[in-house]
């Protein structure tokens, strides 16, 4: 019987996005005769009760669950947490007869990795609480460089197209795929496989700020970028 690997993409975007891109790359490395892979985009699955049931059913029969999500404020985003809660509640009602495994890929737009580690810690504790076997986490920083500016179909975008900036990311995901194939925990030097871009943080900030300025020019909003449309607290407190 084929090993079943289910990728749950936790991005609020309906399709595409970096979580999708990174998860798809890992699945592609598994594409062989002994492994069956499936992608579930939780933003689509949570749109109806029927699709949600289908998702939890697929998760219940998986040998490996792989979560791939963007880092929102040092945590998986709300949609991912909601999905994790639903799967957990399903497990409690109908415990699986096999030892299922969990791996997580967390990606973030900042160049630092500390907040990615916190989000992965939440996934690790989730595995512990639900009885899944924790197989490791990959944290990938600076994913803004992966954005496809060609305007093409998001499904045809790939990590390979991102060139040298994505080289270390692919290496980490290859290790993730090797762990799934060998049924072993992810090989890491620290607690997690944390990947930074091959450029210094200041350069990333500089490139990012220039890109934002160019985008603002396109939308004619350069003069309004720092506006404060909402009222701030009155000056009464704190004294």
């Amino acid at each position, binding site marked *: 019987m084929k090993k079943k690997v289910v990728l749950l993409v936790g*991005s*609020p*975007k309906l399709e595409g996005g970096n979580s999708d891109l990174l998860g798809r790359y890992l699945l592609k490395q598994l594409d062989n005769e002994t492994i069956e892979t499936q992608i579930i985009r939780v*933003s689509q699955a949570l749109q109806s009760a029927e699709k949600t049931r289908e998702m939890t059913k697929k998760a219940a029969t998986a040998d490996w669950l792989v979560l791939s999500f*963007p880092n*929102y*404020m*040092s*945590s*998986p*985003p*709300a*949609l991912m*947490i*909601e999905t*994790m*809660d639903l799967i957990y509640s399903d497990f409690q009602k109908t415990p699986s007869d096999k030892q299922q495994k969990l791996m997580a890929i967390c990606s973030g737009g*900042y*160049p*630092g990795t*500390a*907040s990615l580690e*916190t989000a992965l*810690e*939440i*996934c690790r*504790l*989730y595995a*512990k*609480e639900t009885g899944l076997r924790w197989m490791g986490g990959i944290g990938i920083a600076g994913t803004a460089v992966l954005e496809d500016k060609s305007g093409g179909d998001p499904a045809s975008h790939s990590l390979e197209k991102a060139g040298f900036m994505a080289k270390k990311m692919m290496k980490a995901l290859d290790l993730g795929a090797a762990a799934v194939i060998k049924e072993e925990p992810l090989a890491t030097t620290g607690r997690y496989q944390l990947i930074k871009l091959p450029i210094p*943080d*200041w350069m*990333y*900030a500089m490139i*990012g*700020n220039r890109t*934002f300025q160019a*985008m*603002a020019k396109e*939308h004619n*909003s350069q003069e*309004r*970028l*720092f*506006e*404060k*449309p*909402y*009222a*701030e*607290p*009155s*000056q*009464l*407190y*704190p004294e």
Partner: protein
Amino acid sequence: MEILLLNGADEQDEFAEVVCRCFEEISEEMGHEVTPMVLRNMEMADCPGDYECFIKTPGLCTLAEDDGHRLLQQWTKSHLVIAVTPVHYGGFSAHLNRATDRHLSGIVPHLEKRNGEVHFKIRYDRLPSLVFVGLAAEDDEEKEAVFRRLVKENASMFEPPAWAMGIIKETMAREGIADEVARLLQKVGAHQ
């Protein structure tokens, strides 16, 4: 002082109600004005992270009008935001996550180094202080450590004038809860 009190419980939860009521009572005794919001009862779409509020409509969320807009306005104008959440695997509930996820419009498209990490610059000059409270059924050092780390990193991103965090356990007596609530409010300058 204007206080926004967020109840992030997953469902009707008596313990979360008790803790929120305690915050409300003590704050009102101190003469503060409290706006409570029960997040699970609010219509709030998920932030797609497409940065439209950065570039196209600076500072204004582009999602269709929902309770998330009301939350953002109230959050921005408050002197203090108190968020009460069950501790889920060391993190926040999905409801509280959904509320904090909507804060992209509160930062501007300019990266800068703060507290040793590159972050986006904060849009507003005067920000509310923050209190995060985790509700837990029992002692769990690992979950508490991750929760503390998560709150600390959120505080470092929001840059509040003052912040505090606590874990309140279901086994705590009513007096213990009141003491903890008073301690947290004192830490952010809302209790004498």
